[in-house]
């Protein structure tokens, strides 16, 4: 096992190295660079600036420079924001994380509960209702759901703020600050949960339908366990197995931010930052962010492989 881990870590490093090169090339190949978009510049000045930023160096040389700096913990300055990449991360990533962690938690919680009940009462009214709801939510793009809730809850009823993370101009600290943030994150969390819950519910329902037909469920019932215990411990543990793969994907998503949600609700998250930096081809920031996500992705998949083994003792790694 530990030798397995060592081997995997070795692969992981290799993957990350390959990924960094690949990603670097991708960004470099993306049409336009940081200078292209500035139409105020004359062609000569453009050439001069490209020289200054090192954008006219050969691709590989640029990559080696970047890699070298990165190894020394220097992820550079954002060209667009004129600030250290790491500092920018720190300013935005936690906001995204906050939103994601809460909504992921709710998503899983709700999806598990609904999925299990829907499977248990397959084809009941509840099941049908849930299915219709899920597919309705999935047929409409997220911005509509966002707009709809803003319109109802923020504009018409004024229960919740329409966006942002703080009341504008507020100087709240401590508990008051916390309350303010919670108040502001309610709407985006609702929307994110609503969007995520659907597919997860379908997975759980499907797995549950399989699992509750197994003999060991009969045994559990024969032991006199309450139906809830039968479903949520005995059946669910087996039904969760396929979902473990999803846990692996969840990790990068936690830090990746959601562009659409952040935009609709003006949430100061990393997703927006990424999009902004992409539109101006802010390479240092793009590379920094993408590599960060890549590391998380690789860790996530490793984690899910290990978790898989833990959750299903039959599986050998």
């Amino acid at each position, binding site marked *: 096992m530990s030798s397995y881990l060592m081997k995997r870590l070795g692969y992981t490093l290799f993957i990350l190295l390959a990924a960094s090169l690949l990603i670097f090339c991708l960004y470099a190949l*993306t049409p336009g660079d940081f200078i292209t978009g500035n139409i105020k510049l004359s062609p000569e000045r453009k050439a001069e600036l490209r020289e200054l930023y090192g954008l006219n160096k050969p691709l590989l040389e640029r990559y080696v420079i970047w890699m070298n700096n990165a190894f020394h913990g220097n992820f550079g300055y954002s060209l667009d924001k004129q600030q250290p990449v790491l500092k920018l991360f720190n300013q935005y990533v936690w906001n995204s994380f906050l939103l994601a962690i809460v909504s992921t938690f709710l998503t899983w919680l709700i999806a598990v509960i609904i999925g299990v009940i829907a499977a248990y009462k397959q084809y009941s009214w509840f099941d049908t209702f849930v299915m219709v709801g899920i597919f309705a939510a999935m047929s409409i*793009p997220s911005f509509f759901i966002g707009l709809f809730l803003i319109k109802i809850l923020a504009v018409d009823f004024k229960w919740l703020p329409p966006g942002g993370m703080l009341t504008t101009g507020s100087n709240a600290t401590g508990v008051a600050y916390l309350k303010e943030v919670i108040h502001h994150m309610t709407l985006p969390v609702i929307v994110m949960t609503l969007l995520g819950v659907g597919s997860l519910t379908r997975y759980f329902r499907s797995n549950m339908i399989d699992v509750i037909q197994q003999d060991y469920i009969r045994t559990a019932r024969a032991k006199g366990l309450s139906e809830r215990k039968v479903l949520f411990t005995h059946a669910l543990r087996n039904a969760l*197995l396929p979902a473990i*793969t999803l846990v692996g994907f969840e990790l990068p998503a936690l830090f990746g931010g959601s562009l659409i949600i952040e935009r609709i609700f003006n949430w100061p998250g990393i997703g927006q930052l990424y999009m902004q930096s992409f539109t101006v081809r802010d390479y240092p920031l793009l590379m920094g962010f993408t590599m960060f996500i890549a590391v998380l*992705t*690789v860790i996530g998949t490793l984690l899910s492989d290990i978790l898989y083994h833990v959750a299903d003792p039959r599986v050998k790694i």
Partner: protein
Amino acid sequence: MPSIQAEVTNVATNRPQAVKSSLWRQSIRKLLKNKLAVGGFAVVVFMFLLCFVGPLFSPYTDNKVNMTMMNKAPNIHHWLGTDKLGRDVLTRVMQAGRISLTVGIASMVLSVFIGTLLGAIAGYYRGIVDQVIMRIADLLLTIPSLPLLFIFGALLSEWKVPTDYRMYIVMLILSLVGWPSLARMVRGQLLSLREREFMQATIVLGLRDRRKLVNHLLPNLVPLLIVIATLNIGGAILSESVLSFFGLGVMPPTPTWGNMIDAANNMIDFQERPWLWVPPGFSIFATVIAINIFGDGLRDVLDPKQKR
């Protein structure tokens, strides 16, 4: 042979050969008995008919811009109103369905196929094959999709690929690079399955790998695949509009459900002109839910313990 054998052949020949009716026909018969599945299938067929035949009966098939008819609410002439260029929404919804349905189903089939194949191979063979496939998957997962789409956009434009075909090429490429998540799920499921005793039995029997995969593992993956497939179709229809954002989808006058909804992406249209986004949204909804119901039916038919 002992006497039993003799008796045996008796028994065997006594019974009519009707038993021989193919298992497939049995499954189809069972499927036809499942009202929900039939209903779902009927709706899908209806959607197809509506989209491919429906526009022939519309007086507005030319999709002409008509500035005097902008943003009209539904009325007798335009049953679902008109859009901001005065085009008939009903006709456009029907025309849009041609592309959206094709794209949704084709991309679903493709990505499910690739994902299942690679995931199954990795999970089944383990060892080196697994390592290689999964590490490639890891690598692909780390690649951000945004620059990829931009580059495709640039390349396809560079190569002068006609705009009408770009979407299909991109969908193909996206399925080719988008398999890792699906493959990982399939592989995960397979890792559990292959340790089950019935798979040990197939080893003892010395079955060929293909048979083990197709006849033993695949049927047990079917529920998962059906869920993935139904979730995928809706996603693909909607994501087509994302592609057109990158210039990789269809060009504007050609409608798709995705870009029709997309065009109404603002507070005013949302509030004041529901006829712009409700019809395409509902079409996606109806298609997805119908396919899903059909999928559920299929799943039940293939699940020996279900009886409806």
